[in-house]
């Protein structure tokens, strides 16, 4: 919204006013500081706006602007007509903010712990304070220079040294650091959404064994130091880099418990059925490469119990995946499930399974458009005539459609200990993996 308003103001010299629910407008200063640079004028409606009947919308228009307290339409008129303040006339680069010092003032451990909590430099589980010698030790885990930039967010740059600080805080060992650095190239990637986004981190290649990253029994549980710490570092780094503080930069209505660890797992490559390639090999990497793959998603549904012969796992995947958006999916299955799918159902590769699911998952068009993420993201494409979205928007709501149009967006990861024929379907959309060796 602010980008569109900015262009109209800038290119057309035409006044605009942004109108939003109060839940969004309250974060306008974050947008101004890190993204837009133009102090867009806003009015705020009560939340929610979307999905309310016209009678409610009428009451909003006839009610008060929750920012100024004025009648809504008067507030809109004022936003378009009231002369600019000095603050709104400012232009150019702002005065450099005082740069963050490399070191914090020396203090007691208790006071420092309190400071870290006050500044929200924590997930509120205990952290290791990043003392100089600890960070120096962590930096020995990579050949990269401390000032090298790992990732950027607006004007904020995460350097190797900052990454080392976060790794120390999470409890990492120096040998984990290259994997952590590869992971942090994808940071930050949660928080700036009203929805409940989280991440999934999947590690492939020899590094799994070298670091002891669990790919077997209880792979998703709290039973492995490496899985726990690498996943946690991603969250600490993302929070601090993105300046994601509660009700400041972080505004997910429900949040996600998965953000504590980001489903950090390794693939059980040794237990893959013959013909089923590891995730990183599917992406074109060599089996001997060590790769970390990250993706964003929301949902995580378990099979709960064991596989059944009369309704085998791929059919259950299909049934469960009807609940997902269709934009992407990652299925995490025990090796025994992969074995069953190959031996009894004839899926000779992961790709064959993805292809089958893409062709067989059907949902009613009304259900598809009932998902707010689909509606917000795909409606513009439909209105621009892009298929199949344009057709899906026109058909009667009970018409069955196949939302997973791209089989390659359905990823399969084999992990687990061979103790139960169990699996999860998720809507995590994995991006291209990152080479870990590059960060050694």
């Amino acid at each position, binding site marked *: 919204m602010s980008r569109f308003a900015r262009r109209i103001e800038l290119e057309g010299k035409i006044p605009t*006013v942004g109108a939003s629910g109060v839940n969004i407008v309250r974060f306008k200063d974050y947008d101004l500081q890190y993204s837009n640079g133009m102090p867009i004028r806003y009015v705020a409606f009560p939340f929610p706006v979307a999905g309310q009947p016209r009678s409610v919308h009428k009451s909003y228009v006839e009610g008060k602007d929750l920012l100024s307290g004025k009648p809504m339409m008067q507030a809109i008129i004022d936003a378009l007509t009231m002369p600019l303040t000095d603050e709104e006339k400012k232009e150019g680069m702002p005065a450099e903010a005082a740069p963050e010092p490399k070191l914090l003032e020396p203090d007691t451990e208790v006071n420092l712990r309190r400071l870290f909590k006050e500044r929200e430099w924590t997930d509120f589980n205990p952290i290791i304070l990043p003392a100089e010698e600890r960070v120096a030790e962590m930096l020995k885990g990579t050949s990269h220079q401390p000032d090298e930039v790992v990732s950027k967010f607006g004007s904020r740059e995460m350097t190797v040294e900052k990454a080392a600080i976060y790794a120390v805080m999470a409890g990492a060992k120096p040998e984990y650091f290259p994997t952590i650095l590869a992971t942090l190239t994808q940071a930050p990637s949660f928080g700036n959404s009203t929805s409940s986004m989280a991440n999934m981190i999947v590690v492939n290649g020899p590094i799994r064994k070298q670091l002891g990253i669990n790919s077997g029994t209880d792979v998703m549980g709290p039973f492995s130091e490496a899985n726990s710490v690498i996943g946690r570092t991603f969250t600490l780094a993302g929070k601090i880099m993105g300046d994601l503080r509660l009700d400041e930069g972080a505004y997910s209505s429900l949040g996600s418990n998965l953000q504590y660890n980001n489903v950090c797992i390794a693939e059980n490559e040794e237990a893959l059925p013959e013909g089923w390639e590891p995730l990183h090999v599917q992406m074109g990497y060599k089996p001997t490469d060590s790769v970390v793959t990250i993706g964003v998603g929301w949902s995580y549904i378990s099979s709960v119990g064991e596989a059944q012969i009369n309704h085998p796992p791929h059919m259950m995947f299909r049934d469960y995946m009807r609940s997902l958006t269709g934009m992407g999916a990652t299925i995490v299955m025990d090796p025994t499930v992969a074995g069953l799918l190959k031996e009894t159902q004839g899926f000779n590769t992961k790709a064959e399974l993805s292809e089958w699911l893409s062709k067989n998952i059907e949902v009613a068009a009304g259900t598809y458009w009932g998902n707010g993420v689909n509606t917000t993201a795909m409606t513009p494409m439909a209105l621009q005539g892009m298929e199949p979205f344009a057709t899906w928007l026109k058909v009667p709501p009970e018409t069955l459609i196949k939302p997973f149009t791209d089989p390659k967006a359905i990823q399969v990861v084999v992990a687990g200990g061979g103790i139960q024929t169990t699996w999860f379907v998720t809507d995590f959309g994995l991006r291209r993996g990152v080479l870990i060796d590059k960060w050694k």
Partner: protein
Amino acid sequence: MKKKILLDSFLFLLVALISIGVTSCITGQEDTAKNCDERLITVLNPAISSRMVERVPLAPRIDTLEGKTIYLVDLQWGGPKAAYSVFEEMEVWFSRNMPSVKTEIRRSSGGSFGDDPALREEIISKKAGGVVIGIAG
């Protein structure tokens, strides 16, 4: 015998108190840990320096909306019907209260996160008096 019981009780209490104190220091409970260790330590700063992006001023405002065309642009947050009637109600309000104001309701083809160059061009070429853009939430 009575003396031995008293001595045992005293020793038990002493061990328990020491244990509680040690545990508090280890776990870092703030009220007691402070007494355990007043040493000053130096740690690196996790915060990342940043500055505001380049500031761009707003366009000058107009004196009045009377006689002007106001565009009401729906970014379709939540879909094409989610908030459209808010704009319809704004149009009703203008027609009743400021009839000289002409309103144009448009849906942006770029949705909530994209652009709609054709619509921007239309708004600029028609010299709109102002634009109301929304509605997220």
